[in-house]
């Protein structure tokens, strides 16, 4: 089976017949963008998203002057890169956590099974406490074996309080009761760790809809695994429709997944990425930098190595 070559190499191959003079023609651009589309899909960008993205890049690339210092390949790549950064949110303020409501501000974490919600809840608590907040974590997963114990263990490690109720309690009640508890304990941020669920599981989706309506969280964040493939779009759309997401957190970015799912989710739902997680340790939470993800989606180092050679 054909292996995936680096995008820059392939683009250079395509443009190798070109003199490097004049303007980029439609044929040149089309050929190059076919490669870009494949690279995006290889990076797990959704098929439809990749197609729309390439269409937008095409408008910008055709007729662009071929500049002296950049080869046509480099030029196409740089347009692609800029456009990626733009779609991923640029320097948008939406990328920041909003905790400007009356305390306690509630952050609700939702997502598929195993995406990293519980671990992320603890990392967020750790992060917010360092910023001077007093967080409370809430164990609202009554399904997964030892889910409550997992959050309690993390809470103990961080010395962050955890609100929990005995097995069999109703997750909606747990969340509601936790708010009163937060007030009592003078905690100004409440992080709800909900159970993992499939976007097509109606009963489970109704549970988070009820929690959302009852608690009115300031932030409802989708915790999404960076390794997610083509279905990321559908998952995000379904969660967004159910609970009106205010952001997402992209997890497991310490691996070598290219993270194209984030581009898909952002461009289809408009939901901004607010954080990335890069490990299992409690400090492995980072603010989101669109430019870093862009070059990663294009194949790490691709853009850099091209510019170095220019």
């Amino acid at each position: 089976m054909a292996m995936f070559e680096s995008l820059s190499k392939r683009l250079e191959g395509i443009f190798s017949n070109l003199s490097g003079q004049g303007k980029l023609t439609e044929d040149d651009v089309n050929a190059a963008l076919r490669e870009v589309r494949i690279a995006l899909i290889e990076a797990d960008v959704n098929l439809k998203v990749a197609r729309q993205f390439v269409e937008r890049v095409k408008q910008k690339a055709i007729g662009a002057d071929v500049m002296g210092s950049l080869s046509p390949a480099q030029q196409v790549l740089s347009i692609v890169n800029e456009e990626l950064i733009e779609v991923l949110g640029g320097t948008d303020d939406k990328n920041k956590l909003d905790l400007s409501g009356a305390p306690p501000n509630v952050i609700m974490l939702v997502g598929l099974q195993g995406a990293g919600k519980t671990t992320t809840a603890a990392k967020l608590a750790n992060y917010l406490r360092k910023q001077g907040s007093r967080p409370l974590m809430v164990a609202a997963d009554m399904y997964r074996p030892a889910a409550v114990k997992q959050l309690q263990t993390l809470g103990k490690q961080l010395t962050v309080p955890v609100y929990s109720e005995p097995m069999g309690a109703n997750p909606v009640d747990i969340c509601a009761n936790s708010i009163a508890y937060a007030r009592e304990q003078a905690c100004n941020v409440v992080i709800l760790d909900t159970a993992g669920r499939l976007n097509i599981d109606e009963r489970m989706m109704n549970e988070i809809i009820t929690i959302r309506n009852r608690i009115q969280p300031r932030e409802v964040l989708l915790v999404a695994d960076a390794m997610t493939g083509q279905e990321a779009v559908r998952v995000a759309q379904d969660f967004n429709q159910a609970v009106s997401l205010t952001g997402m957190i992209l997890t497991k970015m310490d691996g070598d997944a290219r993270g194209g799912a984030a581009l898909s989710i952002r461009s289809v739902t408009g939901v901004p990425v607010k954080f990335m997680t890069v490990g299992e340790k409690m400090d492995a939470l980072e603010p989101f930098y669109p430019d870093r993800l862009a070059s990663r989606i294009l194949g790490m180092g691709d853009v850099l190595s091209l510019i170095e050679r220019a």
Partner: protein
Amino acid sequence: QLFSRLGNTVQETDTITDDLWDELEESLLAADVGPGTTDWLIERLRQRVEEEHMRTGSQVQRALREELASLLGPSSSLRFAKQSPLTVILVIGVNGSGKTTSIAKMAYRLSREGQKVLLAAGDTFRAAAIDQLKEWGERVGVPVISQHPNSDPGAVVYDAIQAAQTRGSDVLIVDTAGRLHTKFNLMEELKKINKVIQKFIPDGPHELLMVIDATTGQNALLQARKFAEDIGLTGVIITKMDSTAKGGFAFAVADDLGVPIKFIGTGEKVENLIPFDPQSFVTALFAQE
């Protein structure tokens, strides 16, 4: 609409048009089959259309299903020990893929088949990972050998093998911490666990099963390759097939590594583990929801 339209299109189209090829390509890519494998399949099919003088869309569809099934290889069941009385199954994979849950499901399945099963809580790292396995053990009525959090997983496995031998267990299933294939130290730790098993059970582990989440995209192949290279794999379990994801990476994984897929996970309950069947997997790839 774009998704999973293949079933329709190919049945309804009687001639082989450019549109047909585009639709084929799209359906495969949308199912996470990946550009490399998709290209290869389309090329292969075009060649077969020529050679076999195919004329209709349904012929192409049949050929595609054949090709896909042949990439997956034959179905394959669990391998049991021949030399030793104890079969050891080591379960590995990246974080959150479904290892612990799949172990509970296998334990349930094997006990119902009359095997005496023992579990080893080899994930001593993740918060409450030991409690999670213990709770599963209680639910399915299978004992769990564990130590304290943060103890050496190799020591846990050593203990568990001793216990299995004393108790006369038939099957020992070892849970391990989730680890990304890119983490050198964690991959070394896995090699160590593997060595401990081999030291006491020379022909073991009899199964090295990698667990992959069906919602994973193209990274699945990189993961599988690295795990195969570093410790070797005898099989794959694809979990979360009850999601809308199709797990199309399975074709590249099975073909590239020559490793069979043994089970699929279809839910969070102990019964939700079914032996892998290539034909139904291919059918599900094109299923409408």
